[in-house]
């Protein structure tokens, strides 16, 4: 890949990351928040791939593998928590989880 495309790839990654962030912030549904986190993770992965490809380095792809692993672990834990939340509250609204306020 030519290095001139890195700008486009980075802008795309940034846009995706911001979309994911906004999703995390505005969504109440835990499931959608996790999807938004996946989007953010993949945006970060895209940035790594693009950077690795631009400079011809293999570390970018290695980091992407690490991000995928991280995402899989996060989904495993997060889905378990979501399941428990649903059993307790009969919904998955995070705004109900406010017992630890100061």
């Amino acid at each position, binding site marked *: 890949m030519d290095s001139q495309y890195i700008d486009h790839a980075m802008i795309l990654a940034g846009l995706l990351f911001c979309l994911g962030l906004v999703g*995390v912030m*505005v969504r109440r549904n835990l499931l959608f928040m996790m999807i938004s986190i996946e989007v953010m993770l993949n945006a970060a992965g895209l940035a790594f791939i693009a950077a690795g490809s631009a400079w011809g380095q293999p570390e970018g792809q290695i980091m992407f593998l690490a991000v995928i692993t991280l995402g899989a672990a996060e989904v495993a834990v997060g889905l378990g928590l979501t399941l428990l939340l649903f059993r307790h509250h009969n919904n998955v609204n995070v*705004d109900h*989880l406010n017992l630890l306020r100061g």
Partner: protein
Amino acid sequence: MQQLWLIPCLPLLGFVLLVLGHGRLSRSLVRLVGVGSVALAALATMWVAQDYYAAVTAQAYQVLLWPWLSVAGLEVGFGLYLDGLSLSMLFVITGVGTLIHWYASGYMWQDADYQRFFAYMNLFVAAMLMLVLADNLVLLFLGWEGVGLCSFLLIGFWYQDPANGYAARKAFVVTRVGDTAFAIGLFLLYRELGTLDLPTIMRLAPEQFVMGANQPTLIAALLLAGALGKSAQLPLHTWLPDAMAGPTPVSALIHAATMVTAGVYLIARNHAVFLQAPDVLFAVALIGLATILLSGFTALNQTDIKRILAYSTMSQIGYMFFALGVGAWSESIFHLMTHAVFKALLFMTAGSIILALHHEQDIRAMGGLRRQLPVPFWCFLIGSACLVALPPSSGFFSKEAILNASWQLPVYGPWLWAGGVLGAFVTAIYTFRLFFMVFFGAQKGQTEEPKGWQFHPPLIILAALSLVAGWFVLPAGSVLPASPAGHPPIWTVAVAVGLPLFGIGIAYQVYVRHQWQWLRLDPWQGLRQFLRAGWGFDWAYKQLLLTPFMGLARVNRNDLIDGLPKFVVLISRWLHGLFSRLQNGQLRFYIATLAGAAIVVLALALKVL
């Protein structure tokens, strides 16, 4: 004289036994320990006195028991010092003290706190003996504060009544004013002379001080302030009448015979310093004279038998101060001794009367007790004769000697003498007013005289002593400066004897024959009220000192100084509220702040901001 240490230790041992065995000793055992310890101290005094007189030249005896403080050149030890002056005081304290303890063992027999009473009394005697035997001013101060503490404890002995507690606090606080001045005087004395050892001070003071210079005057004035507080002289006299809230034997021992004369002892002990401050010495005479007259006129209008005696004590101590001021040093100590004997007699007789009348102290409710209480009648008559200084009672010898010495003071002598004689005249009126109101007139109420070996023998012994004490020669003369020599004109003696007799005549006319009623000043109730309230001193002190102080306390109720720490607390509490609001339990808010903070950090890192 090696047994000297025994004298203060025996009452102290009695105190320790009584305190440690609290609630475990039977009443008769308490009596044995309480009275016995003081009686043994009296015997030890006899023993020491025998050695003292047996010595070819009556030398002062000084012994260091053990060192106490040793700080930066100041060496203070538990040292005892015996000379003629302290020996005279020992006779008074242990002799009169034993008789009063003996009497108190009967007087307090019904009291629930018999043991506590004797513990305090023994501690008092130990502290008082420490005061007079101390060979340095620091140890003297220890005894001085010790007797003050015991006075406080015994005035408030019946603490269930808040009025007694108030009287005790008043006595403690008022004497504390004088004691503070006394302590400052000690510091100054140490700075000037570099020692607080009494014999050394006596030796150094005439060498180091210039007569009438500032240092000796200031030191003497501060020591005098301490003496005024302890001896209830103007202007620190207001506590003594209220101190009569304590049991009557306490009034006899502490507030008549011994503790209140400690001020006289202090001045006599430090005579070398006072001789270098003639102005202060003259002030001593004036204060004594003012106290004599003020308390005399107050006593004329009192109705409580013990308060009358309290005012008469103030006035007699006034005579002692007067004597010190005019240079009649040994006469002052002589009067101290005779006064201790006859005033203890008067107080204990008053105690018997009060018991006989079921704790009635108002003399208007008494009357005609002459036939019912013959022993108190004769004892009181003898005590009154001494108080009025009728010849040949002991009071006559001591008071005449004081008045004669005052006449010979240059320039002001006759004026001081006239004041002293006027005081004697007033003394005669109020003493016999009391006497006639109690023992003559119509009988009121039933009496139940306390009899037995605890009541009559001490009274009779004291009455006999009061009569003959004038013939004793005290060993104090060898220590103190010589009194003015010479004799005043013979007519002065005639006036000094005749005027009190005239006063007795007036009292007889007014209170027995009910003539000359205009002398009672009945139309001027305001004046009588003023005199009865002690010339408004209590009122003035309340207005000048107490009320402003209470006002300040009220203003400062919330503690202004505490404002600064409280402000810090307030700030941190406010910040705490602010930060705790951030932790609101909203997951999305946390994420948003996290993102915002990340943006700010990134912006800072990229130097955009």
